[in-house]
């Protein structure tokens, strides 16, 4: 009887020590999980930013390469909607002039984004490169569609919760 009691006491001691050790491991693990969870949440925000800037740059590039003199105002407004700063001003201030040129040349640009990649992205600004393919038709081409591929670089800024293009350049055409 006494022997059995001693045996159970010994088992309780061993279990208690194990509980304490595993509880300590639990606390250390919990702290690591808390830290890792924070890091992963920050990483998720940063990674979702890539998706947002790529979507914004793709939409803006598609607006930029889909211009039709028959709907010139709409085409220009489409580009202006995703633009900001000096780039937007170009479309706001010169839209009448641009419309005239488009109508005179009977310009029709039709295209799509083939690929887009992020060069760099921060909290409030990003640089994206975009490859497009499509056609251009105007009086110079005899109003026949001619294949055109563009390499574009867009600079985007975050304003009012949206990613807007503040600069768009052709890369060494």
């Amino acid at each position, binding site marked *: 009887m006494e022997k*059995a*009691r001693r045996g*159970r*006491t010994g*088992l*309780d001691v061993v*279990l*208690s020590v*194990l*509980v304490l050790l*595993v*509880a300590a*491991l*639990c606390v250390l*693990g*919990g702290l*690591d*999980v808390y830290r*890792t*969870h924070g890091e992963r949440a920050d*990483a*998720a925000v*940063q*990674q*979702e930013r*890539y*998706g947002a800037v*790529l*979507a914004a740059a793709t939409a803006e590039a598609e607006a930029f390469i889909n211009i039709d003199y028959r709907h010139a105002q709409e085409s220009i407004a489409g580009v202006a909607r995703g633009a900001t700063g000096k780039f937007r001003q170009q479309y706001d201030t010169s839209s009448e002039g641009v419309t005239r040129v488009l109508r005179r040349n009977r310009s029709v640009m039709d295209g799509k984004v*083939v*690929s*887009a*990649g*992020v*060069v760099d992205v921060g909290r409030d600004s990003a*640089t*994206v*490169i975009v*490859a497009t*393919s499509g056609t251009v038709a105007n009086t110079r081409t005899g109003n026949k569609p001619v294949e055109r*591929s563009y*390499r574009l*670089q867009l600079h985007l800024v975050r304003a009012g919760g949206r990613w807007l293009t503040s600069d768009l350049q052709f*890369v*060494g*055409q």
Partner: protein
Amino acid sequence: MAPDRSRSSTVLLVVLVLLLAVVAGEAWYLWLRPEPTVSAARPVVTGQLVQQAAVEAASSATEEILSTSYQDYDAQVSRATSEMTDSFAAQYRKTVARLRDRFIADRTQLQVRVVRAGVVRASSQQVEALLFLDKYVKKGRQTSFTPYRALVTVVHTEHGWLVADLQTQ
């Protein structure tokens, strides 16, 4: 007295099992939780250092693969294939074997430079990069310049990042 002892052992055992379950859960979260899946909303699911290293590897490998000269054609093919996965290297060898004789006969020199590079999609194991390339072709005394683009896929292997696919656009 004996039932109390028995109960305390049982309680300690239950607490121990529960704590072990918590530790197992923590270990899963820290080391075994799968990486998020690449999607349109989240095209990059890896850290900046990993994707930067991959895009740099894709850029330098693409320059190496696409730049070649009639003077050292075979050596260049050998250097280029060392930057590729086995399956892509086999595909590449077939393509260049068809072009070899004409390329050497025309005394062609091809120089390709990456002028811009961006990440399209990235996980810790596979990265897709968009590259803007400037190609200079010299045939005899004539030199021509062509701007073009390539979508390059690199995969992480024990030998570093290797090119698994290269689509010029």
